[in-house]
């Protein structure tokens, strides 16, 4: 299992648009990708659950990927977060 931690920079937090793109991105991989905030964990590929996390600017989240392509997945996901959130 691979993981990284990230502090949300975007003013609006994980709002609808990046959440949708993030969910799309997570679906590309066979690994199970999760995101955790304040003890609550949801699958990255599930848009509505992802949005319901309510991750705001300044929140610390932990992203994990577990599976065959976990290395690629975690690298691409980290890149996505840096570029969009």
């Amino acid at each position, binding site marked *: 299992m691979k993981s990284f931690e990230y502090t949300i920079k975007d003013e*609006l*937090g994980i*709002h*609808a*648009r990046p959440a*949708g793109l993030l*969910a*799309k991105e997570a679906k590309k991989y066979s690994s199970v990708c999760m995101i955790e905030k304040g003890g609550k964990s949801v*699958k990255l*590929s*599930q*848009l*509505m*659950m992802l*949005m*319901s996390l*309510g991750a*705001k600017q300044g929140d610390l989240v932990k992203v994990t990927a577990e599976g065959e392509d976990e290395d690629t997945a975690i690298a691409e996901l980290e890149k996505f977060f840096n570029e969009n959130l």
Partner: protein
Amino acid sequence: MQSFQGKSVYKGIVMGPVVVLKKNDYQVKRTRIEDAQGETARVQEAVKRSQEQLQKLYDKALKEVGEASAAIFEVHQMMLEDEDYLEAIQNMIQTEMVNAEYAVAVTGDNFSQMFASMDDDYMKARAADIKDISERLVRNLSGQEDADLSNIDPSIIVADDLSPSETVQMDKEKILAFVTVHGSTNSHTAILARMMNIPALIGVPLDLDELKNGTTAVVDGFTGQVTFEPDEETQAATQKRMQEEKEKLALLQELKGKENVTLDGKKINIYANIGSVGDIGYVLENDAGGIGLFRSEFLYLGRNDFPTEEEQFQAYKQAVQTMAGKKVIIRTLDIGADKQVDYFNLGNEDNPALGYRAIRICLKQPDIFKTQLRALFRAAVYGNLSIMYPMITSVEEVEKIYEIVKEVEIELKAQEVQYRIPEQGIMIETPAAVMVSDRLAELVDFFSIGTNDLTQYTLAIDRQNEKLDDFYNPHHEAILRMIQMVVDNAHKCGKWAGICGELGADLTLTEKFVRMGLDELSVAPSMILKLRKIVREMKVEE
């Protein structure tokens, strides 16, 4: 004639007939089914149709409104693909053996509730999105057509609430305004109304059953009021305001984004004068090239003590960042005994106009000055900030200013605080400064002529004194000669010169100013495009 108060989402004023949109209160019936797989297939079919419809709406919104707003339909598409949402529907069908419509409606409700109960305003507003896509799915399942809102006469749409798809589907040309009983300023309807430049009111306590189609109404986006069956006086006043708005908009369309250049190629900068961070919206809306005078007094007025360096820094930083690279010239504090600032302890003066004010306070009480300078130098890192010193009368004053600037720089360096020493100019608003402007030009980066005070001091007239109206001539030859002298002296040293006083907005003088060689005119935001029009239609060589 009856008026109702709501919240305005977009300014503008219109008058026209009303069209009342009532929700098709389609009651979803729960029925028992035998073929769970068949029902699931129906859902998939409906999802496909919905995606097609959303794609069409996305394309229409993209063309008519813009990418950021069209994006909402992309999000709707993504929501329709959400595993949780679709699985929940499927599970309900399989475990409870109920029809697709019911399963979708209940699942939609549940998800919508989850968002509605979140703390975050933005997330709360998403509950409406989930409701919208669920209703779309149900409509497609039950073979209902999307409400055809494209064939109405130009009207004011009144509804309980409007979903994004309803808002975008309507023919923009035919909508005069939106009025809804519910809705939030964060909602897509609000966002779309703003982008479509359509006056919109939300939260208006109306009884839709009482309202008849075709009733005349006035929607006032400035006051947030809607008035039904306006009397003649109101109608006439509204027509007049509508005409004014139309002319303003036409000017904007025609001139926005165009250069301030004469027919024979001479350019001049047209900037804006403002007094607070809140005015920056008007600056950008009216397409100013920059801010030629940012009065910093707002930070000092209406309070009991001095603004801290941090407070000032945040305000200046916000200003330059919002202007995103366009010049922001901030004038250091220009306060005198005529303003209400007890904590400055200025005391009473017989002649405040000729008194202890502006740069004089800063030089005699350098602590106040240094705080402002520190904040300005720190903010200068974040954007295109320039500084302007008011009420200058001598070379010695400028030299003293620069000594203080040097002290501040040394302090900031020692504290390892990020800073930048920006372009520094002075206001020419005293006859003394005009007469030594050749020497001042060697010392500073630019001049900005404060014609209001310059005229008062030169003509020895108090503008507030009505008795003197016969003697007051803002176009006095003395003033015009002074302006030319200042411009020429600036140019001899390779520096630029502009006007930030009211005379800059005098449309009868614009051509003259361009010919005199002024590099910049800074005026009230509402005058910018009017000036641009004159510049673009004139020739320097007659």
